[in-house]
């Protein structure tokens, strides 16, 4: 139990240190997302949502794979209710894709696998180079 606890703590620390997703709030959203150039994906999530917890490591993996192509941000719907309302987010996790600041696609409760996230994210950006 003790060694398992330690291992879990180390994994947690490692996963936090390698956070590839930047958090956005109502003050930074415009600058980071709406004024952003190129493809951007925003995950609307909350820490208390277990589906978001399942998706988190997958999204981290996708973020490091797409680092140079797609920027990924997260918005916490518990603290940013206004943003959630603005973008009609009714459940978490929801991924909204923006292209040059324009909303081009939305996925609610994506299947938490790297391939399905990559496919779902790529679809709205198809044709963009």
């Amino acid at each position: 139990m003790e060694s398992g606890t330690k291992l879990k703590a180390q994994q947690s620390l490692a996963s936090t240190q390698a956070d590839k997703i930047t958090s956005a709030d109502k003050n930074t959203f415009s600058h980071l997302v709406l004024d952003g150039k190129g493809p951007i994906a925003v995950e609307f999530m909350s820490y208390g949502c277990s589906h978001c917890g399942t998706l988190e490591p997958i999204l981290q993996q996708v973020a490091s794979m797409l680092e140079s192509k797609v920027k990924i941000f997260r918005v916490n719907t518990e603290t940013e209710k206004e943003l959630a309302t603005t973008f009609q987010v009714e459940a978490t996790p929801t991924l909204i894709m923006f292209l040059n600041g324009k909303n081009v696609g939305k996925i609610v409760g994506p299947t938490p696998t790297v391939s399905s996230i990559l496919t779902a994210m790529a679809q709205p950006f198809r044709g963009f180079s």
Partner: protein
Amino acid sequence: MRGAKPILLFNDECNVCRRISSWVQKSAKTKSGEATIIDRAIGEDPEALKRLSPNLNIWDAYATIHLLMPNGSMKLGGEAVAEVLRNIPKTKWFAWTFAVSIFGFRPFQIILNICYAILADMRPLFGCESCGTPGFWIKPIRRMIKWISGDRRTKLLSSSPL
């Protein structure tokens, strides 16, 4: 660290966790009314949790019960429950049993771990939307409850409604 108390982190978005936490809050008091355990909602700020304990990850905190000990160590799941029971005057008379070891096994702690795992799996049955998809053994029970209560929608969500 003198006078420091264990801190029980609980999921404020889950009915079951909130009720258990409020029971702990009421029960974990000495005769003089001093609290023996501090309850703290996990909240939404990962950095605030890190300030509490540098190794504490917010996702892990929501996944299982965490008890931060005054010496900085962390107890999880059934171990945390046992420690909480040791700190409650009403329950500490039997909580010593969880430390009883027979040939390296702690039978009562093992039973408690199993009970905790069952309760954690059952939280979605009690309306906890933030506790995720129910465990495989809970799904038929959940369907039955929904069917009896007239809600025939048995679709299992892959997202939590806001």
